[in-house]
């Protein structure tokens, strides 16, 4: 397989001078006197990216994600090691870079394209498609300063993707815009990858990284801490962060605020083994059913997926299941999903249960709905922890001598 990005022992140091005088002295002596203190934002990072593959980039703030992206985008040269990219690289590290408030969306899209390296002829060919994708409507020829943040972001995203790069570098930006546009961006990213494009995505949204990226690179204080399949690395990272594993429960949305033709959850409730609604605490080991109903005003567009997650009050994701994870699909305009939980493995505690309605990729969340009240589990035994693991003991020991 051919590599579109290769890095070998990549490092980046930033100089910090004690004073302006030290800086001048250092410059005038051609680096001999008054050396600056070096801060290594990135050290010894090596990885390859195959054509058509996608790499997630995770790490705490200040871990060196942005520095690595800047090196890959060619904005800055490494201080150690080397890197090589093949093909056209488009980067969207900061939305709105190079936009001018007094110019129209059309003019700004042109400039943005020129800044990203497109020739005039290429822009002439692609400008219409770019503007189409940005969905600016009548605002196309109005000055940019009259735009909402979302509109400006749409324009930047449309310009970067519209140039059909071989390698696309995104920094967190795709969590932008309204719900409808986010969905479009996700679709476009999948189409980009299906067409053989390679993607590098830095994000704090571990769920997004897991769904979109095959492999993930975890940076910690500038050093490579993990590189491998996204599931493994994001879980290791989440465990290290000691916080929520999936961040699945962000921002559930009141159905009233959804766009009118957005797919939505119309009901979500918890039933006991006999099909009665559960109002009180349940015992660990009981049989339960979760029932969720959906409605899709425009079912023709694509199948939906439904996920259910159990989260402890401190945000730890305890368990999550989804139709996309188990190979099912929901095609109809409306319907009901019933999830049987034969013997509840959860131990004593209070759990937040959320239903999520996803797009066909299991990435974009149309709607999220919690159970009306948290699931409270009581346990009779003295077992500790979150869940009761299915288990059998086998003891082997010499006969004790009385």
């Amino acid at each position, binding site marked *: 397989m051919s590599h579109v990005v290769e890095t070998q022992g990549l490092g980046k140091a930033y100089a910090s001078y004690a004073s302006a005088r030290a800086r001048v002295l250092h410059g005038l002596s051609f680096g001999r006197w008054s050396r600056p203190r070096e801060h290594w934002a990135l050290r010894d990072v090596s990885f390859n990216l195959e054509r058509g593959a996608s790499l997630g980039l995770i790490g705490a703030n200040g871990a060196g994600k942005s520095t690595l992206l800047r090196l890959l985008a*060619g904005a800055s*040269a*490494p201080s150690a090691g080397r890197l090589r990219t093949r093909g056209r690289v488009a980067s969207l590290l900061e939305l709105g870079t190079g936009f001018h408030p007094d110019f129209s969306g059309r003019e700004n899209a042109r400039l943005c394209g020129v800044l990203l390296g497109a020739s005039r002829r290429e822009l002439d060919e692609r400008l219409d498609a770019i503007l189409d994708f940005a969905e600016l409507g009548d605002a196309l020829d109005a000055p940019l300063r009259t735009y909402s943040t979302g509109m400006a972001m749409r324009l930047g995203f449309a310009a970067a993707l519209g140039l059909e790069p071989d390698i696309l570098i995104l920094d967190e930006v795709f969590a932008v815009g309204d719900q409808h546009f986010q969905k479009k961006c996700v679709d476009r990213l999948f189409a980009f990858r299906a067409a053989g494009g390679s993607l590098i995505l830095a994000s704090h949204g571990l769920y997004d990284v897991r769904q979109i990226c095959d492999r993930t690179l975890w940076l910690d204080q500038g050093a490579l801490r993990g590189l491998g399949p996204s599931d493994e690395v994001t879980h290791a990272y989440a465990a290290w962060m000691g916080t929520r594993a999936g961040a699945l429960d962000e921002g559930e949305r009141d159905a009233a605020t959804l766009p009118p033709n957005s797919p939505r959850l119309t009901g979500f409730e918890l039933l006991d083994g006999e099909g009665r609604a559960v109002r009180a605490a349940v015992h660990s080991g009981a049989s339960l059913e979760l029932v969720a109903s959906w409605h899709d005003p425009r079912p023709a567009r694509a199948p939906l997926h439904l996920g259910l997650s159990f989260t402890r009050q401190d945000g730890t994701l305890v368990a999550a299941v989804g139709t996309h994870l188990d190979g099912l699909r929901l095609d109809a305009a409306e319907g009901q999903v019933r999830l049987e939980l034969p013997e509840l493995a959860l131990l004593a505690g209070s759990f937040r249960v959320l239903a999520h309605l996803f797009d066909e990729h299991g990435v974009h969340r149309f709607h999220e709905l919690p159970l009306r009240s948290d699931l409270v589990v009581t346990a009779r035994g003295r077992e500790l922890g979150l869940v009761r693991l299915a288990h059998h003991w086998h003891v082997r020991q010499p006969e004790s001598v009385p």
Partner: protein
Amino acid sequence: MSVPLSEPQAATSGWVEPPRVSLRAIVLASLRLPAVVWRGRDLVAASVGRELRARFRGSLLGPLWPLVHPLALFAIYGFVFAQLFGMRLAAHGGNPGLGYGVWLFVGSLVWASFAEGVGRGTSSIVEHRGLVRQLAFPAATLPLIRVLGAALTFALGAGAFLAVRGLSGAGLPDLEHLVWLPVLLVLQIALTYGLALAAAALHVVLRDTAHAVGLLLSVAMFATPVFWVPDPAVLPPVEPWLDWITANPLFWLLEGWRAALLGAPSSASFPDSVGASCAALAPWAAGSLLLGTLVFCTLEPRLPDEV
């Protein structure tokens, strides 16, 4: 972007490696710089257009402003100096229509273009730090955009001047002067760009540069005959200084434009030919470009990180 607009240290193998700080690396980067700027020509053209239009966006007269402004200055200078003070240039004695006011007007137009190009060019890279930090952006084009913007505004003013001159019955300057105008304009841009490029790169690593440049421009404005006439017949004290005055490239820049637009030199002791001014200016313009290229290429590896 199959070929990135700026390739920091891309070797032939395609590997991007840490920049080497050596004389050889600086010379190599300097040799590459013209090609880097040329690859960014679409960007430069679009941005110069944006600079010019941004000045007049939302205004009623819009693109007419670069003409209205010099014409108003022209009228004021002409009225105050030629009519009120009755000043005449000795060298233009035979042509009373071309008084000190017109002479001053042309000089200040050229000076404003030079000072704006160098002054705004100096801060250009720092003001666009987002581009230089985030994209593989050819930073050397940023001062060029400002310089070209100032030069084009000037060219419009010069064109307006010639139009008024033609319509007012004074007639156009001789063809032998006019053919030199494009050459003079190119030399002016080269001289201005070289200085702006060096100052812009220096300003990134040392923020005192813009202040120093502003001060130097003020000094240079008085050291150059913008307001005063370098003709012993008009201003006798300049006599012993003539050698110094003519050693100043900006003198030749102004003299060239004055000879071209007015059809006569400032003083009978100067050559009455735009070509002579161009010849005197050319080595300075080349030297300025060389200086700018070397300073920029020396500092270039530091720009994205320190801007």
